[in-house]
């Protein structure tokens, strides 16, 4: 097949409808970026949930000598600890547990806040100010209420902390962002489809003489459609390239540059997840332009 005509038509078509093609590229670029963001946020939410779900721990802080909880009459006793351990051990929801001593807790807080605050004549706190605690790992991250209610009323237990209260807002934030991105993307995809349709109508009108003659002299439908498909493919390729670039920038400057430092306690998405999003965008882009082109050239050109 002689493709000289196809390529010269392609160049001409792109120049002739430049503003229209730019509109398609911009709309498609923004919508593809949002779809890609949606994919990234989705995997991010999955990863955070997986991490905090599978490693979900409930921490029960035990009574210390001067406890804020009025139920704690004195520092937790060995008998009370044994009883707590027994309840935890017998609970079917519990996978594992361990006790943390006052000294261990003191060491952790010294590391987090800096050791110098806790030394010298007037330390901020001593090991005796720290509570002992029991760290319980659950079998099923969703089954936490049973064990929580079982230990919360026991003698010697001061407070119970559920880690999910810490991660929950982060997960919810990701969820809202993901849904928002996909919703906006859906509207923009619709706009992009309409723009593609308009572009084809304009191009078909501009080429109506050539198309009429091509049909008359027996050019195949593929040959007549080819310049339209190539135009669609070029605009899609440019949009995909910019969108992947934008996603890359989001990963590098946003996730890697800021979020990882800002919110360090959840595992952030990396290069693998970025490539998945890029592939989704690279497939979606051409599909969004080629499908309407195929349908509409059939309609407008009657090839």
């Amino acid at each position, binding site marked *: 097949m002689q493709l000289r005509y196809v390529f010269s038509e392609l160049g001409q078509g792109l120049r002739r409808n430049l503003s229209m093609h730019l509109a398609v590229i911009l709309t498609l670029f923004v919508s593809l970026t949002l779809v890609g963001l949606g994919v990234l946020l989705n995997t991010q939410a999955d990863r955070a949930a997986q991490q905090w779900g599978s490693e979900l721990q409930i921490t029960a802080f035990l009574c210390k000598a001067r406890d804020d909880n009025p139920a704690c009459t004195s520092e937790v006793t060995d008998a009370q600890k044994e009883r707590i351990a027994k309840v935890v051990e017998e609970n079917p929801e519990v996978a594992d547990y361990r006790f943390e001593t006052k000294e261990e807790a003191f060491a952790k807080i010294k590391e987090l806040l800096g050791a110098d605050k806790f030394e010298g004549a007037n330390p901020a706190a001593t090991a005796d100010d720290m509570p002992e605690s029991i760290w319980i790992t659950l079998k099923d991250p969703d089954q936490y209420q049973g064990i929580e209610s079982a230990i919360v009323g026991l003698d010697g237990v001061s407070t119970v902390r559920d880690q999910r209260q810490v991660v929950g807002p982060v997960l919810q934030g990701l969820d809202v962002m993901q849904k928002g991105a996909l919703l906006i993307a859906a509207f923009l995809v619709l706009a992009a489809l309409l723009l593609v349709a308009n572009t084809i109508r304009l191009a078909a009108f501009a080429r109506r003489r050539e198309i009429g003659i091509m049909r008359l002299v027996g*050019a195949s439908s593929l*040959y007549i459609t080819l310049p339209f498909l190539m135009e669609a493919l070029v605009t899609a390729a440019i949009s995909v390239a910019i969108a992947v670039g934008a996603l890359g920038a989001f990963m590098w400057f946003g996730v890697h540059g800021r979020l990882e430092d800002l919110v360090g306690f959840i595992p952030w998405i990396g290069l693998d997840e970025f490539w998945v999003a890029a592939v989704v965008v690279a497939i979606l882009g051409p599909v969004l332009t080629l499908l309407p082109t195929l349908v509409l050239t059939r309609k407008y050109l009657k090839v």
Partner: protein
Amino acid sequence: MIRFEKVTKTYPGQGHNALDQVSVDVEKGEFVFLVGSSGSGKSTFLRLVLREYRATSGRVYVAGKEINRLASWKVPRLRRQIGTVFQDFRLLPNKTVSENVAFALQVIGRSRSEISTLVPETLELVGLEGKGDRMPDELSGGEQQRVAIARAFVNRPMILIADEPTGNLDPTTSVGIMKLLDRINRTGTTVLMATHDAGIVDQMRKRVIELDDGRVVRDQAQGIYGFQH
């Protein structure tokens, strides 16, 4: 070459038939005038041959194939065997004469070397040697129609369809175009020409098929336009 068997064509939403039980047989190498008033069915007849429409009933054979049953993807192959010329020339204004003629070959995938021999050859045949580099709007009406004929004939089709080819031309120029069509006919190409031009029909003395309200009212060898019947 072209055979209509009891062909009826009704356009959607129209009560009466554009063609009504038309049976016609055109042999290979014939020159046939299709005459009749506007709306008599001439254009419908030509469009059925080109398979732009399908017949509502009856059979249309072109080059030995029943084209009503032809799959859509085979239609381009059929049209490569038919050249078509119109009253309004339909040249591409942004292409030179040579490019206009070459376009018909390019888009059906003929090789560059074939194109470079066929195009000048055909331009010479239609009497436009040396004018290949002109733009269509630099040519007279008669010359433009010659370009259109060259484009229709450059692929050496078996059938040449001409829809009022002299409709926009003065009588002297029309005679030149008719001589050209006659020359093409002598190479063995079947020519089917729809026309209103009585003078030309009378002069040429070829077969005349007259349509009136979708029916064949006359089919006469070596006929004239205004046959009294």
